[in-house]
């Protein structure tokens, strides 16, 4: 059997979605952004809405997201993506508008825009990548940095007395009556990727049905910023990020999911040490 | 013809709306007009004033410091604006609440007991139209039919049933204005 015998349409098991461009991504090996981009692009392709989608990019590692999605894209000032999306959607109600932001962008400098867009119940999809660190600027503390976690600006670990608590913005916005669907996912295993994609699909379907704002957090690793290998980072994320940022749906169809404790915050969880 | 007017009193006395009705009447009579209010926290219950200019020519500045006519409805406004009337100009005041009468000798001064009259007649809501009537008696710069149109334009439609009462108040004002000091 030759290569030519193998490369045939009937043998095709996977192909890159046409909603991603051929541009080479600048993300670090092991980073979750590439996978998150891919599943969003696949959902757009599967729903047949490439010509109706407007993406909003943040400032942060995914500042250049517009180069990778083959849909019309706007680049926002730091933190302002939900404001852009609000107007883009209200002026173009038949288009699909999504924001893509990191933790510094969405939960620090852009907190007001995030909360008010959610509170107004804008009919948009918000994707939130939470890796507990400012990746692009070189690994400084983010609002979601864990207690005790080291970063460039918390070299001795995040100290509650000095830096306050990790901000669980997703639980916070879930309490707002304007949000329809709020979920937390990850993309570090094939099973997690499938679940995250299902959640993103639901978020876009909600927009299609004019059901209001859907918010998908993806807990991700930043192995470069965390100074670990990709595999170590994924293990560390499971052991340390997930207790504070538990994976699963938080609010579905406008109702908090039974058993979800919105106020739960583990601050004394001892962080594991990577050897 | 250019008439530069200041109307000044307490917020709630209808100072701004009197100016607006006068200005709108001017517009209806094809005059050039401007209406420049004081604004801000002072509007909320404190003193309020508005400069109204009605002219046959293009109005240069809507912001002015010398007036042909000052219509004064409280003591603070009298203290503030008496000196701003041009020599030979006109000052109209309501004696209600006035403790120190105007003293200028180089201007015409008229008094109009509009507050008292409006209370007596039970038409306190259109007190400002009584005052306007007094002014129009002395300076008929806008004809009555245009005042009617001005009222139509300035009042919301749901209040158009009150236009006859407003016009009646103007007539009352024309009857009660009297000289205080004339040249």
């Amino acid at each position: 059997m030759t290569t030519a015998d193998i490369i045939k349409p009937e043998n095709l098991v996977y192909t890159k979605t046409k909603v991603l461009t051929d541009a080479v991504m600048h993300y670090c090996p092991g980073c979750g952004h590439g996978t998150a981009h891919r599943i969003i692009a696949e959902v757009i392709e599967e729903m047949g809405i490439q010509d109706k989608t407007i993406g909003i990019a943040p400032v942060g590692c995914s500042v250049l997201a517009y180069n990778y999605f083959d849909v019309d894209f706007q680049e926002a000032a730091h933190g302002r993506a939900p404001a852009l999306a609000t107007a883009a959607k209200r002026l173009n109600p038949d288009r699909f508008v999504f924001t893509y932001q990191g933790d510094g962008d969405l939960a620090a400098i852009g907190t007001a825009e995030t909360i008010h867009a959610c509170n107004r119940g804008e009919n948009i999809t918000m994707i939130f990548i939470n890796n507990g660190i400012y990746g692009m600027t070189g690994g400084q503390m983010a609002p979601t940095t864990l207690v005790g976690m080291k970063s460039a600006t918390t070299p001795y670990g995040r100290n509650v007395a000095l830096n306050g608590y990790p901000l669980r913005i997703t639980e916070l916005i879930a309490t707002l009556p304007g949000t329809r669907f709020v979920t937390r996912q990850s993309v570090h295993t094939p099973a997690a990727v499938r679940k995250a994609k299902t959640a993103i699909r639901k978020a876009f379907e909600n927009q299609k049905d004019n059901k209001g704002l859907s918010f998908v957090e993806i807990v991700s690793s930043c192995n470069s910023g965390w100074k670990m290998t990709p595999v170590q980072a994924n293990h560390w994320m499971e052991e340390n990020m997930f207790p504070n940022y538990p994976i699963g749906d938080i609010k579905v169809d406008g109702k908090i999911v039974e058993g979800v404790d919105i106020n739960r915050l583990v601050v004394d969880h001892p962080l594991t040490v990577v050897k | 013809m250019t008439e530069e007017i200041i109307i000044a009193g307490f917020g709630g006395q209808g100072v701004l709306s009197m100016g607006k009705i006068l200005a709108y009447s001017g517009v209806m009579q094809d005059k050039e007009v401007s209406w420049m209010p004081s604004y801000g926290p002072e509007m909320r219950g404190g003193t309020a004033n508005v400069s109204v200019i009605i002219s046959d020519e293009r109005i240069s500045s809507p912001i002015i410091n010398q007036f042909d006519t000052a219509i004064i409805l409280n003591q603070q406004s009298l203290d503030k604006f008496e000196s701003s009337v041009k020599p030979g100009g006109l000052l109209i005041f309501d004696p209600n609440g006035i403790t120190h009468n105007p003293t200028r000798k180089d201007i015409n001064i008229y008094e109009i007991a509009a507050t008292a009259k409006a209370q007596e007649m039970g038409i306190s809501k259109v007190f400002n139209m009584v005052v306007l009537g007094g002014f129009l008696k002395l300076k008929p710069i806008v004809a009555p039919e245009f005042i009617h149109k001005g009222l139509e334009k300035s009042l919301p439609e749901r209040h158009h049933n009150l236009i006859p009462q407003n016009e009646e108040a103007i007539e009352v004002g024309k009857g009660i204005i009297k000289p205080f000091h004339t040249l």
Partner: protein
Amino acid sequence: MARELKLMKGNEAIARAMIASGTDGYFGYPITPQSEVMETLMLEKPWETTGMTVLQAESEMASINMVYGGAATGKKVATSSSSPGISLMQEGLTYLAGAEIPCLVVNVMRGGPGLGTIQPSQSDYFQSVKGGGHGDYQLYTLAPASVQEMYDFVFDAWDIAFKYRNPVLILSDGAIGQCMEKLYTRDYVPRWTEEERRKNAPWGTWGKPADRNHNIITSLELDSGRQEIFNLKLQAKYAEMKEKEVRYEALNCEDADYIIVAYGSSSRISMKAMQMAREKGLKVGLFRLITLFPFPTKQLNEVSKKCKGILTVEMSAGQMVEDVRLATECRVKVEHFGRFGGIIPTPTEVLEALENKIIK
């Protein structure tokens, strides 16, 4: 709606002109002395007539970024505020200029610095024409001096904004905003259809059809060489505006010995001072700037060749005066007269300043 004669405030005129000029969206935040703009829009409910969107944002930062998000889809989107709010918008304005997004921003100026006063002022000249935000950019800046111009300039703003893909600033102040004057309304310009939007804003992020590449609205360029080329392109655009889009009004300047240079409400006060001067036999003219950027450099230079002195009148500590001195190459004496902190100079004061600083 056809041409009608109305009496209205400058702020209300801005709002009504937005509806009448086919504006697609307005996003704002309350601040004195311009809150009547949004109040009028909310009262008029244009979403039920022209389909215009109106939204009260959570801050001026949000409203300018809503302008960005809406206008980047090729729609006519506007906001308005007053000085402190405009300061908050400076980040958004430099991004809008950098991403070449046509839009309209109205500043109804009040006195500063800081929270300052709510009374009229003209102390945001530097902020408006010398940058405001970071980077080399310009806003096409119109200075209305009457309620009619408040109305008309909104229509003009859309033409310029889309012709040059540049934000337009209407720089007014509390005096013009709060003043009521006569106004002739215009025939309604319908909002653009989907086809017109695609034709007039082919660069817009309105959804990528199969037959074009994806449109990207961004002000980011990490390659310095390409960023320099982009800066040169912006500069060429501004040079074209200077060549083609300068607006001013010269009154009695032909025979004038002395000229007052002013814009906005100061020019109205100065017009009265000019009339008073002429009554006294003084040959005084008024040069009123309508565009602050582009500045009428050539035209002022010409005027300065024939007069003996120039007084600039601004409700500021003296900002525009610098550009007047540069434009006239110090050929004649140029002095500034201004009141600030919310104090409006009187025509008498202006005439006195002219006599004391220039004529004497």
